[in-house]
């Protein structure tokens, strides 16, 4: 999965456009900055209360200057600090152009499940519900299937829902899907894979974009 995570993050980085305000979730999304075009003017915000996050500092690391996962960051010129309630005000209000979240399951209607695996993993919902509600665009990143091969792109989520009808795009290590009112559309295939590969590893039906391409 190491390579797969990199593949997903690299493709997701291309969704980040000049001038955007972006929120990255924990897990695979946190790898996205490694693949960003450095010429882009982008402001990353985090739920704890910072807009304009810069890279992890190499010296003078400060425990009181961190991202939402608690890891050290820096602040860019024009950045600001605020309280967490204000941070979520920005999120609910629609000030976030792009939210990139990790997912456990996504349904063909764009339902997102990413907060709990009952009886097993209990991370808790964090800010995912607000991001799913408020962000102008929500992209879910996840491995295409579970380790045992069970699908994660599903007709109906079997895990508890974070938010209904919120995911606009799914990026996996195999493909990029767009979620449309009419269902799932395959938009890109990762290099080296065929349409048959995608079909073999995707349980539910999907349509194929007339612009289907191989991920660059």
């Amino acid at each position: 999965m190491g390579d797969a995570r990199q593949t997903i993050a690299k493709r997701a980085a291309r969704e980040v456009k000049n001038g955007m305000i972006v929120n990255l979730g924990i897990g695979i999304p946190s790898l996205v900055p490694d693949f960003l075009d450095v010429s882009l003017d982008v402001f990353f915000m985090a739920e704890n209360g910072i807009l304009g996050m810069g890279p992890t500092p190499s010296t003078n690391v400060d425990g009181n200057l961190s991202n939402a996962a608690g890891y050290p960051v820096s602040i860019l010129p024009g950045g600001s600090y605020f309280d967490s309630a204000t941070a979520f005000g920005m999120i609910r209000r629609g000030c976030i152009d792009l939210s990139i979240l990790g997912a456990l399951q996504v349904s063909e209607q764009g339902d997102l499940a990413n907060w709990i695996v009952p009886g097993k993993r209990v991370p808790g919902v964090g800010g995912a519900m607000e991001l799913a509600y408020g962000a102008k665009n929500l992209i879910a990143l996840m491995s295409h299937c579970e380790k045992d091969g069970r699908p994660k792109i599903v007709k109906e989520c079997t895990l508890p829902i974070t938010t209904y009808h919120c995911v606009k795009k799914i990026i996996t290590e195999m493909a990029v899907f767009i979620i449309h009112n009419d269902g799932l559309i395959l938009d890109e295939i990762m290099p080296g894979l065929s349409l048959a590969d995608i079909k073999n590893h995707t349980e539910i039906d999907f349509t194929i974009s007339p612009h289907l391409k191989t991920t660059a």
Partner: protein
Amino acid sequence: MNLFNKVTDYETIKSNFFDGMTLLFGGFGGVGTPPGLIDCLIETGVKDVKLVGNDAGFPWIGIGKFICLERTVSLVASHIGSNPIAGDLMNQGKLKVEFSPQGILMERIRAGGVGLDGFLTQIGKGTKLAYDKPLIKIGDTEYLYEAPITGDVSIVYAKKADTFGNLTFDKTARNTNPFVAMASKVTIVEAEEIVPMGELNPEEIIVAGIYVKYIVPSKGYNWKWIWEMPDKQLRNEPPAK
């Protein structure tokens, strides 16, 4: 204005903690959680505490240190993923956890702090996190009712406090502290620096001293951050004493 001097010491504030109290704590993943007040809380031996805060910290960081002692009956938080011991206690039935969307939890604390009687939102509607929250119909739309949260005691970490309790914060250690500071009967502030009244620029004060009852001086963080830990394996366990 000597009357407005709220500076005291850790021994003196201990009597504010009591069994069964609702305790609101500032901080986000331990950042901005007052380390000296956590140790003070632990020393008092209080039990059956009802906690409200963003998360469960880490087992050796922030509120996590207290949660691991099994003297907490309930926790309202947005996640407990960074504290596996909290998860174990929950699964064993020893800790009741109410998960709240993070921003909604912040607003519930704010509503308590500013004297509003709750608010409506569609966030969480139809999910398990709606629990038994009332559904309120306005026009054609149903909203979840989110109740305000107030506490008996709030513990807060500030960068600077003047003796009246006017507070400034340090970078992302501000996080949940400003509204946690407003939402309890008794607010206790641990400040990195305590200055006379008049030293803080009135434009830069984030929380007015009106909300603060006691101020104690901080000795700084007394835990290692997760990114300072040498071995990833160690990250889920407290560091060696």
